[in-house]
């Protein structure tokens, strides 16, 4: 049993997610990701259950662990009570802890998620926040969304929201002290730590790829990871 395997075992989800796999393929059969990505959750489970560090390391650096959509359909079906989805979450966690995520195109995208969803959580108290969902970042939101963005305040008013207001209600302003509590929780539970790791590993990778990376979502590296798809992930 290898060092990396031990680290995985520390993740409660891994312990929950992995019993003996008999490679029946039920997970891959139902997996939406396996349907489009060159990806096979069965093989991932089979690999980690070998407890072989080299192959686990390979996984941590690979593209393949980033294809899962975490819909958890696999958990519903597994005849051995495994949850490949959870195992993959554990692998992703470890990959970020150890900084291997920057070795894969899909892994590098973690910075994009951190700088959008991740930062919104702490700055607004929401996972996704109206002001951030711009047409530039989300052209597929279509004309209606342009209209929404142009009339945010009025529209929410019309629909009975409480945009940036006090008290309860839709898109209300989350009180400062609440946000402080959140920050504190992140601090205590290693959330901030995770954020910093993502930032620092990404910065060094950006240097290595010599793409400039500043804060926010405008710099070269960010645009690169947000948009690049080398087309080798699907058929």
């Amino acid at each position, binding site marked *: 049993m290898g060092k990396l395997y031990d680290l995985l075992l520390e993740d409660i989800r891994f312990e929950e997610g992995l019993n003996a796999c008999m490679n029946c393929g039920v997970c891959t059969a139902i997996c939406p990701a396996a*349907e*489009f990505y060159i990806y096979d959750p069965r093989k991932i489970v089979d690999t980690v259950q070998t407890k072989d560090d080299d192959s686990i390391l390979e996984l941590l650096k690979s593209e393949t662990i980033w294809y899962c959509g975490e819909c958890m359909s696999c958990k519903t079906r597994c005849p051995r009570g495994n949850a490949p989805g959870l195992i993959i979450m554990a692998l992703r966690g470890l990959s970020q802890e150890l900084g291997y995520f920057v070795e894969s195109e899909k892994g590098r995208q973690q910075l994009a998620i951190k700088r959008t969803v991740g930062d919104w959580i702490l700055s607004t108290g929401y996972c996704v926040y109206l002001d951030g969902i711009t047409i530039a970042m989300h*052209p597929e939101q279509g004309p209606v969304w342009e209209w929404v963005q142009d009339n945010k305040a009025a529209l929410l008013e019309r629909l009975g929201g409480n945009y940036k207001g006090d008290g309860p209600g839709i898109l209300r302003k989350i009180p400062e002290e609440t946000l402080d509590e959140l920050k504190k929780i992140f601090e205590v539970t290693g959330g901030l730590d995770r954020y910093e790791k993502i930032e620092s590993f990404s910065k060094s990778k950006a240097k290595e790829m010599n793409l400039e990376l500043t804060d926010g979502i405008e710099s070269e590296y960010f645009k690169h990871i947000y948009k690049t798809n080398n087309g080798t992930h*699907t*058929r």
Partner: protein
Amino acid sequence: MNKFGFTISQGRQIDYESNSRRIADYIYDNEPSFRLCIECGACSATCTAGNFTSFSLRELNILIKRGENDQVYQSLKKCMLCGKCSLVCPRGVNTRNIIILAKKAFQLSDEYTV
């Protein structure tokens, strides 16, 4: 790249209905032992070509049977026909003839020409 910055992914499932089993049927007709494979992998384990590249006769057999002809067509070229596989096969499958027939089947079919 379009204005959305991505294109719709194509599925990679084996779609049994839409695939053509022409190659497989040709082999079934001319080499009945093709049916006998139990996918044990002995052939792939001993394979001379497989020693250098990702070539698996076991997988090839399956892909032929499923009608994944494009993939078959590509990996078919890697075989060296050395015949080790036929010596280790526990079901006495005439493995070399399968490769040869597959090649022939592709030649007889029109859609596989440059």
